[in-house]
């Protein structure tokens, strides 16, 4: 179970498998797994679908589908614009769930997660939202402003319904807090490689390495690293250090500048065959 290519023949039933079990979880020289990202409804759902097809074809393993929110405070300019453009074109939570249901069925080689902000979940109904995710086969939820200490109801709903609440840690997270967060996260721990919002480049070096080593010494789950990954060098740097590399803004930037064929080329450079 190395990457999506090898799994493309698997049955959709696999999506019921717990997220952590789908991650090989070992930094021991396995090719790193790739998680890509899409803001739903941007530029439109058809393009989202084609992008996801490219993700599966090029061997990405996990896909983060972002449900747009009007106040995405953790996102930088590229995602901010995409969130707002998606909403301006009328994207609703219902459409996002319907779309997710379709791609989970059509692309069994991929594991799908949702990323959104807490208010989107709250207004849908916390319990109902998590149940809907479970029914569709969404495996994890990344909700950066569902501060875990204040979001008991959400964390509980995830546990009850077998959807993983993915928590984020940063280089500024104290070790004490890291123990707590790694205990309550589901599936994997999302390491934001630096401070700041999504989008700007991270310089991967000694500090990132020290951060990952610190997380590794505490985490009981696989670990994913994201924020500012822009090139295949960044991915190669992370190889052997963490389990998943998360590539968000750069994919959207390539799509905006070079279209789907550009994305296809870009994915080839970062995902080893």
């Amino acid at each position, binding site marked *: 179970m190395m990457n999506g290519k090898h799994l493309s023949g698997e049955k959709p039933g696999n999506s019921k498998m717990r997220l952590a079990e789908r991650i090989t979880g070992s930094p021991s020289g396995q090719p790193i797994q790739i998680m890509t990202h899409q803001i739903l409804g941007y530029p439109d759902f058809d393009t989202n679908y084609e992008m996801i097809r490219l993700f599966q074809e090029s061997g990405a393993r996990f896909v983060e589908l972002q449900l747009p*929110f*009007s*106040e*995405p*405070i*953790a996102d*930088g300019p590229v995602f*901010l*614009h995409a969130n*707002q453009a998606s*909403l301006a074109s009328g994207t*609703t*939570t219902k459409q996002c769930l319907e779309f997710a249901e379709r791609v989970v069925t059509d692309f069994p080689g991929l594991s799908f997660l949702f990323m959104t*902000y*807490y*208010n*989107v979940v*709250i*207004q*849908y109904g916390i319990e109902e939202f998590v149940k809907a995710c479970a029914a569709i086969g969404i495996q994890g939820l990344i909700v*950066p*402003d*569902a*501060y875990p200490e*204040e*979001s008991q109801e959400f964390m509980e709903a995830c546990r009850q319904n077998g959807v993983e609440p993915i*928590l*984020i*840690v*940063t280089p*500024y*997270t*104290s070790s004490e*807090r890291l123990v707590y*967060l790694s205990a309550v996260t589901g599936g994997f721990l999302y390491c*934001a490689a630096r*401070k*700041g*919002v999504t989008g700007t480049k991270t310089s991967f070096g000694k500090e990132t390495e020290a951060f990952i080593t610190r997380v590794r010494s505490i985490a009981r789950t696989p670990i994913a690293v994201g924020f500012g990954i822009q090139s295949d060098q960044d991915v190669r740097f992370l190889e052997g250090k963490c389990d998943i590399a998360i590539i968000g803004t750069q994919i959207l930037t390539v799509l905006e500048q070079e279209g789907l064929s550009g994305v296809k080329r870009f994915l080839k450079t970062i995902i080893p065959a």
Partner: protein
Amino acid sequence: MMSGHKTVFQTISAAAEALVKDDGYYGNYGGSFIPEILVPAFAEIKEHFAAIKQDEAFWQEYCSLLADYSGRPTPLTYADRLTDYFGRAKIYVKREDLNHTGAHKLNNALGQVLLAKKMGKTRVIAETGAGQHGVATATAAAKLGLTATIYMGREDMERQYSNVFWMKRLGAEVIAVDYGSRTLKDAINEALRDWVSSFETTHYVLGTASGAHPFPAIVSYFQAVIGIEAKEQILRAEGRLPSRVYACVGGGSNALGVFQAFYPHGDVELVGVEAGGEGQGSGRHAARIAYGEGKAGVAQGFKTLFLQNNDGQMKDTYSLAAGLDYVGVSPILADLSERGRVRFTAATDTEVVEALEIIMKTEGLIPALESTHAFAGAFNDITESSGSDIFIINMSGRGDKDIFNVAEGLQDDEWKAFIRRKARQFENAAR
């Protein structure tokens, strides 16, 4: 400026502690829904705020700044001509317009910039709607030797350009926010985005009693002085407490400022006046509570009543007054409203422009458009009052900044002709 036998800190904390909660929850509202990256920044503020809350020396320094720099105490003016005009309740006006920089915002800005300095920060950032909080922060930063960056929606910059001019002259960097509704909420988002990458050197001077815990508490503390003074002043003038206290509500800082000291006195009615814009049902207002359209939700780090659609997307808000044009409201006020302790009402743009004309001509005061909402709310109620009632209206700021909007609202042709002449002069000079 405070009652002699109590220390400054005792007086302020007695007023603030009646409302402020250490756990950051106000009934169903409040809390701290922040992304993980901001956890250390919030931990640092909580720790320092808890420390300064007990620190007599800090409060002495804060109060000397208020007294010797800002010009406190501000008077409580008996509006005799306005009282005669309506012939009902006696009207008193708390004169926050007489603070240095012309609004209550400086009370909070001085307190927080002083706090930032104690935390070892060298830079402050802030959001601003009407520009008053931006000017106050830029001023406090200049006075205390920190650098300042102010985020302001492009729409608000156009509406309140004189304040943009002043902020820049005061040495602050002003950054236009060019997305969303280009108003206050978008400026807050942008300030938060700055803060997640700058918190090591930078403090975010949030301008109102909203946002994640402990901001509502911090801002309440630094604004409590308004009500403490007003209570002493009315007791001195009338020997009794007022029947009602009116304040406009954007985020809620001037309202909480004046309400806190009166909160324990159950027979003083506290009235918050929101921006009714073009009126109920118009979809163009910022009356989250008064029009019953605000729904509980989580955004910008806290839980409160927001104007939002069924999917939880924030709606565009509107008011003639940029400082009231906010999509959420202080969690403390949302709770007080739910508990029936603060009554909420709204004043429309039209009512505000009418009220402004009355205030100017009968009393010689020029309140900010924001503050005029408090007056308009009181005027709307005044027929059900009698000569034995006393109203205190918090005049949160002065109206100089609004000269362009007011002239436009009043269709002042002479002013328009003046602007055209000025524009021609600049064009000719540029040629």
